[in-house]
């Protein structure tokens, strides 16, 4: 995927023009300072108008942006002493989900997240962040470990979805996801989940049953990929843009439906633009939510997690009329 989004192009063109003018200005032959100031003000406005009016599809593209920070970036920035643990103790180690022990502000915890690759080779190795059953089973093992030792759990969500492959189906992709979802409803550990990029359907939900589910402003979380949805509805994957707006997959809509607990704002242009800011925002949010959850006993956590998800549904007592 290109690192420049369609929606960013006018801005980048303007920024290039400013750069050129500045170079000319430096020669000292003509004074372009006021023109430059004007254009800079215009660029600032354009930036705002672009990023404050992103369509759902723009957000899908930002969420999938190849340099958007991934799970390992957050682990490196926000955690210390990370010890990556491998394997499901059953069949394989799945590199599409990383996990291990680490410390968050000095406290031991378990971290689990989808990991897309950086670059083609890594992306192949990590299967573009699409887990096989082993990934979910590894996550389940690590979260069970957390449960037994009362360690908090952080999960980071960033996947196009569970891998749709023959062998993944043979080894029970559906069972692995189901068991992990069920497991997470039972854990006595506090669970904070953050959707950092793409939240793709069951493959995302398989490690996303948090006590708190946070989402970065430009992340998306969807019951089906816009492309898949468009194929089903209109038999035309190219209508993904339309499907994206239809599916209600943006952070604001998810918040309005009570499906996420908080939206974390991103710098203009997306999380990859000013990563230090993003890390600071995320650190603050994780600290705050974990701090609140630590006031509960394991049994209270399980009870309130049950209640949280129990509420998620829109059920009417009368049939809607078309």
């Amino acid at each position, binding site marked *: 995927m290109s690192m420049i989004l369609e929606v960013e192009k006018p801005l980048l063109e303007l920024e290039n023009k400013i750069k050129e003018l500045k170079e000319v200005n430096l020669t000292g032959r003509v004074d372009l300072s006021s023109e430059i100031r004007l254009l800079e003000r215009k660029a600032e406005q354009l930036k705002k108008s672009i990023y404050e009016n992103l369509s759902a599809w723009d957000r899908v593209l930002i969420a999938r942006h190849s340099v958007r920070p991934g799970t390992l970036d957050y682990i490196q920035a926000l955690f210390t002493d990370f010890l990556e643990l491998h394997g499901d103790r059953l069949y394989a180690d799945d590199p599409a989900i990383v996990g291990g022990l680490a410390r968050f502000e000095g406290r031991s915890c378990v971290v689990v997240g989808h990991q897309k690759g950086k670059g083609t080779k890594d992306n192949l190795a990590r299967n573009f962040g699409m887990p096989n059953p082993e990934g979910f089973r590894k996550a389940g093992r690590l979260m069970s470990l957390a449960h037994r030792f009362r360690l908090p759990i952080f999960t980071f969500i960033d996947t196009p979805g*569970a*891998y*749709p*492959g*023959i062998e*993944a*189906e*043979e*080894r*029970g*992709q*559906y*069972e692995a*996801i*189901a*068991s992990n*979802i*069920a497991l997470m*409803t*039972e854990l006595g550990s506090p669970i904070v989940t953050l959707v950092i990029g793409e939240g793709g*359907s*069951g493959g995302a*939900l*398989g490690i996303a*049953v948090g006590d708190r589910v946070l989402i970065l402003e430009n992340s998306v*979380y*969807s*019951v*089906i990929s816009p492309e*898949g*949805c468009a194929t*089903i*509805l209109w038999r035309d994957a190219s209508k993904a843009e339309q499907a994206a707006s*239809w*599916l*209600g*997959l943006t952070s604001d*809509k*998810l918040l309005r*439906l009570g*499906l996420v607990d908080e939206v974390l704002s991103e710098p203009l242009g997306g999380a990859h633009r000013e990563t230090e800011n993003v890390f600071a925002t995320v650190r603050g949010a994780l600290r705050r939510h974990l701090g609140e959850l630590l006031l509960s006993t394991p049994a209270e956590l399980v009870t309130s*997690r*049950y209640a949280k*998800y*129990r509420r*998620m*549904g*829109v*059920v*009417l*007592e*009368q*049939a*809607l*009329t*078309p």
Partner: protein
Amino acid sequence: MAGLFDKFRVNRPKVDQSRSDETQRAELPSDLWIKCSDCGNAMYRKVFLDNSKVCDKCGFHHKLTAHERLELLADPGSFEEWDKGLFSGNPLGIEGEYLEKLVSDRKKTGLEDAVLSGKIELTGIPVGIAIMDFHFRGGSMGSVVGEKITRMLERSGDLRFPALVVTSSGGARMQEGMLSLMQMVRTSAAVRRLNDLSVPYFCLLTDPTTAGVAASFAALGDVIVAEPRAIIGFSGARVIEQTIRQKLPPGFQTSEFYQKHGFIDMVVPRSELRATMARLIGMFAQPVLESPA
């Protein structure tokens, strides 16, 4: 996912992919004759129905309606419906045909949504049951389906009734967006609560059981039974074929395939289903009722 009625049929070569509804597929214009969607065999309608919609030539198990399933399984007259009067909303404000289709599916099936739940008796043993009906929006799981299954599981726990879910679904109801996905959590949590109460939970998987339904309560039974040749799995065959760019092997994602791969306890033909389920559930009735955890 909803709407995908033919998605799970790709590896059944003789299915006419252009038709999207099983019942339609199984019908010839004449009221007297039924054509098997799997092998093309033409049968007298009466023979077909007497045979519980199993093809008398190839043995394919055609989809039952929720009420037909009830009749097949329950002791006559034992059904008490639970949680009537729950209807799907339109939380994403979807325009287009969705609301009309809900209305027409209600009319077609006599159901309020894609699941029918309640209490039955099975050779006298009370059982909490939820039966999904593929004829209602492809059995897709929106909030109402999730709510009714969750309530059934909760009530079975309270009453110490063994619980049984009969699945038939293409997965989540896309038109409810992420609310639909979250039904996987609610239903799975309710299963675990039953487990904690040592109340047995059974799944009967029928054609098809895929995506979000397969990947939640359908996979979590203490014992999992499937009808022959039902299509089961997470990803649809077409999606897999597009991803790997090769044809799927014959028998892929069937009940028999998943029994071989370790995920299905028993594949039971419809003719033996009632007796087998009674024997199975009876196995748990005694100790559970005598010594609840």
